[in-house]
């Protein structure tokens, strides 16, 4: 990391717009799930208008807050601060907020409607009453005098509360976590820090990918704007060709199968089999599903690949069936490895099912179904457990399960009338 170049002073981003963030070069693991080889930065910004000063986001608490306040004081006095914008309330951006509110109690806070409850929860430990705040949404504005902050409602990037703030007259977009990355370099700007693509893409994959529909909504809101600089909350400030990063987000978030398979539903059948019994079940299930028009079925043996490959497939699929034998009262480890690797993609609402052969107690199927429900898949058809070697009738049951899953995927289901007492 280039440390020597950075002073304790704010860094000018544009006339009257300064970076007042903090660098964290020694961080190696972020939010437990992310690695970084050179740390990260917590970017906060100050915008000066004729009638007031806005602070956009803060930094993580502790020594980072000291850096933030020192830089802030180099370009503004606390009594000048009229506006605090919170684009995202995760603690790495709101850590210094309680202290900032103590130093600038006159400032009004602007945040998204979904951030209100989080603001109250964040300020709980300080025991202070929440500040004056205004919930905002797309096209709400704050006039700083000759400078206008316009808000964009961009939720779930990557929390429900997230928003972007556009400084109209300068074409600067303060984006919170989108377009950010965990990459620490005191040279601050994308045209000065060298190649950081690996970090930008890694961050997208681990933070934004599960929310790709929301990414596309946000990109659609941002694309019509005159963007001259993107100021994210982590990593380099994107002043050189900022639209390239916008384009890249659109590419990354666009579904891969959009053109080739919109007319078909995709059902993936994953299985593991010790003696070939669960494999025969998988094949019969797949054949049954394939007999229903409009469903494309693919079979995968989990012994033949690793979780990363299957994660990509699962992201684009409509339905997922998992077959596992029961060994020592549990499903086998590769199933759990895969089912614990899906946090980077959105699987909410996909159709799920389980099946498997067992020799003794057969817990695997129910355990997998519970996990699928926990992952927010819908499990409309009860799974199938078969003892040891499936016979012809049992393979027919597997076919029927496949057909039933395919009917659910294609909306060709017959109406059923049930009584709650019978299904409890």
């Amino acid at each position, binding site marked *: 990391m280039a440390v020597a170049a950075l002073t304790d002073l704010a860094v000018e981003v544009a006339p009257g717009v300064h970076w007042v963030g903090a660098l964290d070069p020694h961080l190696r693991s972020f939010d437990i799930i992310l690695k970084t080889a050179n740390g990260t930065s917590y970017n906060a910004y100050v915008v000066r208008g004729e009638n007031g000063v806005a602070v956009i986001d803060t930094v993580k608490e502790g020594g980072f807050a000291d850096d933030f306040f020192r830089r802030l004081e180099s370009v503004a006095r606390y009594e000048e601060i009229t506006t605090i914008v919170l684009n995202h309330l995760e603690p790495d951006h709101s850590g210094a907020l309680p202290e900032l509110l103590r130093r600038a109690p006159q400032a009004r806070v602007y945040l998204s*409607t*979904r951030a*209100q*409850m989080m603001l109250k929860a964040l300020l709980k430990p300080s025991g202070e009453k929440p500040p004056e705040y205004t919930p905002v*949404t797309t096209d709400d504005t704050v006039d700083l005098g000759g400078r206008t902050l316009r808000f964009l409602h961009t939720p779930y990037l990557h929390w*429900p509360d997230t928003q972007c703030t556009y400084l109209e007259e300068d074409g600067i977009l303060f984006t919170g976590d989108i377009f950010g990355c965990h990459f620490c370099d005191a040279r601050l700007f994308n045209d000065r820090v060298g190649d950081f693509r690996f970090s930008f893409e890694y961050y997208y994959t681990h933070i934004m990918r599960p929310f790709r529909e929301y990414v596309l909504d946000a990109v659609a809101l941002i694309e019509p704007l005159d963007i001259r600089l993107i100021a994210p909350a982590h990593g380099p400030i994107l002043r050189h060709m900022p639209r390239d990063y916008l384009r890249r987000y659109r590419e990354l978030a666009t579904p891969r199968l959009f053109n080739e398979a919109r007319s078909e539903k995709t059902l993936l059948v994953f299985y593991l089999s010790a003696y070939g019994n669960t494999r025969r079940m998988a094949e019969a299930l797949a054949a049954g599903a394939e007999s229903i028009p409009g469903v494309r079925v693919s079979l995968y043996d989990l012994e033949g690949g690793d979780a990363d490959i299957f994660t990509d497939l699962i992201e684009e699929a409509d339905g997922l069936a998992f077959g596992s034998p029961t060994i020592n009262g549990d499903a086998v480890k590769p199933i759990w490895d895969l089912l614990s690797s899906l946090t980077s993609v959105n699987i*909410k*609402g996909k159709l799920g099912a389980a099946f498997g052969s067992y020799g003794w107690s057969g817990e695997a199927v129910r355990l997998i179904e519970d996990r699928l*429900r926990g992952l*927010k898949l*819908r*499990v*409309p*058809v009860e799974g199938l457990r078969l003892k040891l070697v499936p016979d012809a009738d049992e393979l027919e049951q597997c076919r029927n399960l496949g057909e039933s899953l395919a009917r*659910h995927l294609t909306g060709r*289901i*017959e*109406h*059923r*009338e*049930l*009584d*709650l007492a019978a*299904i*409890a």
Partner: protein
Amino acid sequence: MPKAKVTFEDVGVSVTVPAGTRLIEVSEKVGSGIIYGCREGECCTCLTKIVSGAENLAVPSILEDQVLKDNMAPRRHRLACQAQILGGEVVVRPA
């Protein structure tokens, strides 16, 4: 005990339930696509469209009302973890 009927359009299932049953108590059992997060009326994950019979649901609590408002829920949407079926017929589908 008075009975009510709730239909989950997405899976084509109608279920007869005792009056007072919450949608959450039924939807997972029939495999509806209504999904849950906190299950306590705070996160809005289980937002559900009430296709018909909204008048047969208990009125939202103050907390549910606030969560619906904060999340800009459209009209005729409820939280499945909170909405209680009081009688008659209700038809729902995932939001």
